[in-house]
C-alpha cells in the first residue's frame, strides 16, 4: 500500500515534468503552428545554462531562476534569425528546427565537449513519506511544474496578451490589420515556449546526465502528449501529458521500461486515431 503511494508519487513526478516539457512545445506548436524539433535542445540548453551559472558560483536556486531566461534569450535570437521566416509553412518548420537542433547540439559539443557534466542535487535533504525517505528536490520540481503550468494557463487564456497571441496564430494577417504587433507577439511567444523548455531542463539537470544529447529522449513523448490531449487549449496538452506520462511510468513500474515504451506509443496512436482532435477539444464548424 505504502509502496503504491511511492510509485504514484514517482509517477506524478514524471507526469509533471513531461507536462512542463509538453507545455512549451504545445505553445509553440499549438499557438504558432511551428513544429519545433529543437525543443529538446532548448531543454538541453537549460541544463547547460544551469551548469554554467552554478559553475560561475551562483547559488543553485538563483541559477535555476535565471536559466530559463537565458534559454528564452536564445529562443528569441532563433526566432528572429530563423523561425520567423517559416511561419505559415508548417513543413518547413520541421526542416528549419531540425537544422537548429543539429546546430545547437553540435555547438554544445564544441563548447563543452561531448561528455557528461553534473550539477549536484541541491542539498535540501529528504522527508519521510509513506515510510520512505523522499528527496525534497523532487517535490520542489513538482511544485515548480505546477506553478508554471498555472501561470502559463493564466497568461494565455485569461489575459488580453494571451488573446492577442492566440489571434496571431489563428490569422496572422487579420490580427495585424486589427493593430496587433504580430512580430512582437511572435517573439514573446517563441521565447516563452523556449524558456519553458529551458526551465524543464534546468529543473531536471541535477537528475540526468547533462550532455549534448540530453534533449533527445523527450521529443516523441512530448509530441504524443500534445496530440493525445489535443491542441488549441492548454488543458489538452496537459491532459495528454498526464495520460502519456502516467501510462509510461506505471507500465514501467509494473512491468518493464521496454514494455512501457511499446504500450505508450501504441496507446497514443490509438487514441490519436480515435480522437483526431484530441481528448480535450472544441468542435469546429468547417463548411
Amino acid at each position: 500500500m505504502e509502496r503504491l503511494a511511492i510509485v504514484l508519487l514517482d509517477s506524478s513526478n514524471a507526469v509533471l515534468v513531461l507536462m512542463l516539457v509538453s507545455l512549451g512545445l504545445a505553445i509553440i506548436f499549438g499557438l504558432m503552428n511551428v513544429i519545433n524539433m529543437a525543443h529538446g535542445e532548448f531543454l538541453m540548453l537549460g541544463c547547460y545554462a544551469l551548469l554554467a551559472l552554478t559553475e560561475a558560483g551562483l547559488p543553485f536556486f538563483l541559477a535555476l531562476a535565471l536559466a530559463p531566461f537565458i534559454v528564452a534569450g536564445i529562443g528569441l535570437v532563433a526566432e528572429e534569425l530563423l523561425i520567423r521566416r517559416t511561419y505559415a509553412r508548417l513543413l518547413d518548420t520541421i526542416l528549419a528546427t531540425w537544422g537548429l537542433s543539429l546546430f545547437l547540439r553540435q555547438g554544445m559539443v564544441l563548447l563543452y565537449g561531448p561528455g557528461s557534466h553534473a550539477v549536484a542535487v541541491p542539498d535540501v535533504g529528504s522527508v519521510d513519506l509513506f515510510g520512505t525517505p523522499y528527496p525534497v528536490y523532487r517535490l520542489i520540481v513538482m511544485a515548480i511544474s505546477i506553478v508554471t503550468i498555472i501561470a502559463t494557463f493564466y497568461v494565455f487564456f485569461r489575459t488580453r496578451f494571451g488573446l492577442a497571441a492566440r489571434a496571431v496564430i489563428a490569422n496572422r494577417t487579420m490580427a495585424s490589420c486589427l493593430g496587433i504587433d504580430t512580430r512582437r507577439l511572435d517573439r514573446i511567444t517563441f521565447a516563452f515556449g523556449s524558456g519553458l523548455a529551458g526551465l524543464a531542463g534546468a529543473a531536471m539537470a541535477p537528475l540526468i546526465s547533462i550532455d549534448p544529447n540530453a534533449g533527445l529522449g523527450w521529443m516523441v513523448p512530448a509530441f504524443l502528449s500534445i496530440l493525445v490531449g489535443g491542441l488549441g487549449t492548454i488543458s489538452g496538452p496537459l491532459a495528454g501529458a498526464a495520460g502519456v506520462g502516467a501510462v509510461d511510468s506505471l507500465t514501467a513500474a509494473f512491468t518493464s521500461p521496454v514494455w512501457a515504451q511499446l504500450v505508450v506509443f501504441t496507446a497514443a496512436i490509438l487514441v490519436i486515431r480515435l480522437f483526431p482532435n484530441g481528448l480535450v477539444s472544441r468542435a469546429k464548424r468547417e463548411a
Partner: protein
Amino acid sequence: MKLSSATLVGLVALIFFVVLPFIVSDWVAADFGIYFAYALFAVSLCFVWGHAGLLSLGHAVYFGIGAYAMSLVTLGMVPGLPELHSTWVGLAAAIVLSTVAAAVVGWFFFANRGLKGAFLGIVTVALAVIVERLAINSSYLGGMNGLMSVPPITLGLNGDGPEIYDPLPIYYIGLTLLAVAIAAMMRVSASRFGVSLAALRENELRLWTLGHDVAKLKIAAFALSGGLAGLAGAFFVVQFGFAAPSLIGFSLSADVLIWVALGGRNALIAAALGAVAVRFLESRLSNLMGATWPLVLGMVFMASVIFFPKGIFGELIDRLDRWRDRANG
C-alpha cells in the same frame, strides 16, 4: 509537346549519371549504387508528401519492410521454405509486403475522417518507433543486430547463377530503376488519379464534396508509395548486405524527410537529386570537417529553408521554369 522543366533537369541529370562512371573510379560508382536506392526511397516519400500532401514521418517502415523481406527470402529464412533463396521472389515479397503494410497503415489512419497534417506526421513517427522496437525485440529478425550476410542479387531463379556484386552493373541497375520509377511516378502524377491527389493536398473537403472517395485515394497513394519504398529497401539491402532495425525506424525516416525537403518536395526529380547530393556530400565532408560537419549540416538546413524554400533543386527547376517562360514571351 514542350518538355517541363522538371523533365529537362531529369534528362540532364540522367545523362550526367550515365557518363559519371567513366570519369570517376569504381568505388565512387559503388557508393552511388547505394545512393540510388536512397533516391528511390526519396521519390516514394516525395510522392505521398509533396504530391499528395500526406506527411509520412515514418516512411522508413516500408523501406525497412522491403529490406527485411528481401533479406529473409534470400537468406532462406522463410518459415517452411528453407530451400527458397531467390532474389526474384525476394523482390516480389519486398514490394508486395511493403505495399500491403502501407495499405493497412493507410486504411487505419485514413478510413472515415482520418488523420491530417502534423497529426498524421507525428503518429507515423510513433509508428516507426514502435515498429523499430518490435524489430529489435524479434529474434526472428535478428534483434538489434538485424540480419547479416544478405546475399547480393543472384540472377538465377533460386539464388543460384551469377551474383551481381561489382559496382558498375549495380550502378546502372540502380540508375535504371530510378529513372524508370521517376518517369512512371511522373506519369501517375499527371494522370487523373494524380490530379485528384494534388487536389486532395490542396483542399480535401472540396474534393470530397465533389464526389471523390478521399480515404480511398489516400490509401492508394500510401500503398503505391509504400511499395516503391519497399523496392528501394530491397535494392538497398542486396548491395548493403545487412538489414537492421535502424533501417526501419526513426532516424532513416528523418533522413529521407530531409533529403526530400532539401532537394525539393514539389518535384520527384528534385527529391531524388536531393538524396543523392546529401549522401554524397555527407560521405565526403563528414571526414573532412569532423565535428564541425553536423554544425554545418544544421546551418545548411536552416539556410535552405530561408533561401530555398522549395528545396535546392526545386528552386532550380522553378527558376528554369520562369526563365523559359520569359524567353518564350
